[in-house]
């Protein structure tokens, strides 16, 4: 291959789309490293602290799409203190200096300030797409800067961010000359936007295919918008409260009928059951339906709707759909690939909404199912074994039994055998979340059979260090391991220290790991950052020098080329 001119090698590399493949070819020889790095257009950084931003830009000066992730996954559940880190600014600054041709930026779980958004808006003349997922630290002022300065912006996608509302004018900052928007998602914003400005914006952006509104947008406004955007493929509605005999509602039905390209629906906050009839005409074309923010819809109404949705591939619902509702899904949605069932009654006294029966029904009806997130009140081994047999194609399997450590209610046994069946049957399993009563045995199975597993989430499980060791020694493709409230201690942590350099990160909280154990790990493995995160309450009480026997409340370990980070807050010790 080295006899070929570089242009040919580069052309061959063009066919490699995955980051992993490109990473691998770059290690073959110096020539390939050079060709690859100069031709790389899309860079993915899974942990923002694994490498310095400047280094990334220096190595890949031609970067057009940059994707960076910050906080560990458990930050979604408030387990990571608020100002732990994950700042976007250094990345945007480095890109502004090193890759001014940047076109797309995707950030997940990072702290993005208005200042960084302003810098972003001014630094990249070809900027086309901004995707922020689960980020925080910015306000609508930052969005105003993006709208104002990013000429030719195609995509502004804000998913589940915490955005401070500084007023409605940001949307009006899109100049009249802006006609390039193809995707606009501001569903997570709490404040109002200027409805008139929005209607004019969508009217002039003729290529708009994806529009996700926030709760503040009324049905009246939605009807007017839909009339101007009949080619929409994805729609997130705003608030869906309207008297179903009202004129606005009639106009809405009429507008929906014109939208022949709609394939994805979400939103539906506050929707009243009767209003769902307005979308019956679209249902037969739907491939994606997200009703997980519509708690007012009960099982029976959901079922009526779903009977129309026979092309559905992705369904997100609340557990008030019930086992019976899931049976209807199973018989109607034969193309279903992804199902998420969220809990609707977290604070209540648990009237069982979905159980193992619903899951078994789904598995027998939907043979193409490959991705599952299922919150339920109970699960049995028999059910899991049946599911494993019916659906061997799972790549993502996340089961959350709401009661931690709950056994199989029929047999009072742990759920080891059930999960064991899943990992044995699903050879392509990449992501797994466990729950219920589990002993070390389940980890023995996981270590032995889950060869492709990349991410494992453990909570309230296991008996001893052996459990964690089975996983570390067994799962050769493991990248992320997150554990909470499980009896794994120093012996497990230190059993296979080399493993952590093959992984992106390890999170352990409320386990039995001690400060001494963390120090030992840090000493043995200098290319890991071992972060000990102290809860605020503890820091005040703690002595100056806690003993090594002191159990660590939260520990985050990750491989890094950048050494200890210099932006850690005082409650984080990097050993």
């Amino acid at each position, binding site marked *: 291959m080295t006899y070929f001119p570089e242009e040919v090698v580069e052309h061959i590399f063009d066919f490699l789309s995955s980051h992993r493949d490109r990473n691998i070819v770059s290690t073959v020889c110096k020539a390939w490293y050079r060709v690859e790095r100069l031709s790389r257009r899309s860079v993915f950084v899974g942990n923002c602290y694994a490498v310095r931003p400047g280094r990334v830009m220096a190595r890949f000066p031609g970067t057009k799409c940059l994707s960076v992730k910050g906080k560990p996954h*458990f930050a*979604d*559940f*408030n*387990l990571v203190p608020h100002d732990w880190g994950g700042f976007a600014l250094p990345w945007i600054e480095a890109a502004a200096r090193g890759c001014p041709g940047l076109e797309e930026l995707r950030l997940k779980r990072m702290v993005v300030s208005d200042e960084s958004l302003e810098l972003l808006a001014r630094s990249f003349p070809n900027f086309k797409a901004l995707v922020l997922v689960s980020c925080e630290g910015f306000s609508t002022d930052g969005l105003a800067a993006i709208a104002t300065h990013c000429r030719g912006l195609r995509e502004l996608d804000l998913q*589940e961010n915490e955005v401070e509302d500084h007023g409605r004018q940001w949307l009006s900052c899109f100049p009249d000359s802006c006609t390039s928007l193809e995707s606009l998602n501001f569903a*997570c914003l709490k404040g109002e936007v200027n409805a008139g400005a929005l209607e004019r914006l969508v009217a002039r952006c003729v290529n708009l295919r994806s529009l996700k509104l926030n709760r503040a947008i009324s049905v009246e406004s939605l009807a007017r918008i839909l009339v101007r955007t009949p080619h929409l493929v994805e729609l997130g509605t705003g608030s869906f409260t309207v008297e179903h005999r009202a004129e606005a509602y009639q106009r809405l039905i009429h507008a929906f009928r014109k939208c022949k390209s709609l394939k994805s629906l979400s939103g539906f906050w506050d929707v009243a059951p009767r209003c769902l009839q307005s979308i019956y005409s679209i249902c037969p074309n739907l491939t994606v339906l997200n009703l*997980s*923010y519509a*708690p*007012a819809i009960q099982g029976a109404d959901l079922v009526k709707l779903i009977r129309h949705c026979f092309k559905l591939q992705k369904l997100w619902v609340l557990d008030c759909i019930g086992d019976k509702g899931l049976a209807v899904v199973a018989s109607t949605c034969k193309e279903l690939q992804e199902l998420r069932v*969220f*809990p*609707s*009654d*977290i*604070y*209540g*006294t*648990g009237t069982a909404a979905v159980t193992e029966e619903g899951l078994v029904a789904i598995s027998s009806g939907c043979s193409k199912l490959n991705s599952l997130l299922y*919150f339920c*009140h109970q699960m049995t081994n028999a059910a899991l074994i049946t599911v494993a047999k019916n659906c061997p194609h799972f790549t993502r399997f996340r089961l*959350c039994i*709401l*009661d*931690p*450590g*709950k*056994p199989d209610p029929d047999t009072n046994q742990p759920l080891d055998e059930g999960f064991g069946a899943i990992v044995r049957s699903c050879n392509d399993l990449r992501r797994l*979340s466990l729950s219920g*009563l*589990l002993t070390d045995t389940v980890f023995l199975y996981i270590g032995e059979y889950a060869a492709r597993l990349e991410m494992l*989430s453990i*909570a*309230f*499980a296991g*008996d*001893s260090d052996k459990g964690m060791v089975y996983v570390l020694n067994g799962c050769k493709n493991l990248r992320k391991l997150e554990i*909470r*409230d499980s*009896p794994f*201690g120093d012996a497990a942590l230190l059993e296979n220290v080399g493993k952590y350099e093959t992984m992106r990160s390890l999170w352990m*909280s*409320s*386990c*039995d790991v001690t400060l001494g154990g963390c120090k030992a790990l840090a000493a043995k493995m200098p290319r890991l950052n071992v972060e000990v995160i102290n*809860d605020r*309450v*503890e820091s005040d009480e703690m002595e100056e020098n806690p003993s090594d026997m*002191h*159990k660590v*409340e939260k520990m985050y370990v990750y491989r890094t080329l950048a050494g200890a980070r210099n932006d850690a807050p005082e409650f984080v010790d990097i050993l």
Partner: protein
Amino acid sequence: MEDLDNLKATELTLGLPGTSDAPEKPATVSSRVNRRTNEECCTFARNRSEDTAAPAAKARAVGWPPVRSSRMNSCRARKMETEDNSGIYVKVSMDGAPYLRKVDLRIYNGYKELRNALDDMFRCFSLGGVEAHIGESDNAITYEDRDGDWMLVGDVPWEMFISSCKRLRIMKGSEARGQ
């Protein structure tokens, strides 16, 4: 569970008014587990399974179940809706205003929103040339609770407030200061 209405109001509970059926507020288990022994830790999961009481009565660990805050808030909203579909309408009076208003306390998410709404409603009645913002220095928002006492709005958690508020009154500065 089905008694509701008046019986519920007179029921003795350990909970604060306005909280859910669970007598315990969500406990932060993580703050105490640091002192756990190994045995406690191992039996932690076991103890949970042995306890057959309603899930609501158990202490809830931080970050469990693993659901994002935006969804948790959605659940909270639904819980309130299913408990009582009608709004909580209370009269609002302001000294010197020719008529009273009524507000539905359920539609606000907190004190700030309530203050803003009252400000919008009563601004036109502000006396003198200076527009006094309702709730700031010169006015006090008070409410009559179930015991018939006039309380200052803002001291107690929002949900406790809306379950015990019978009517609102915006007091002018001088009266609010007890002069």
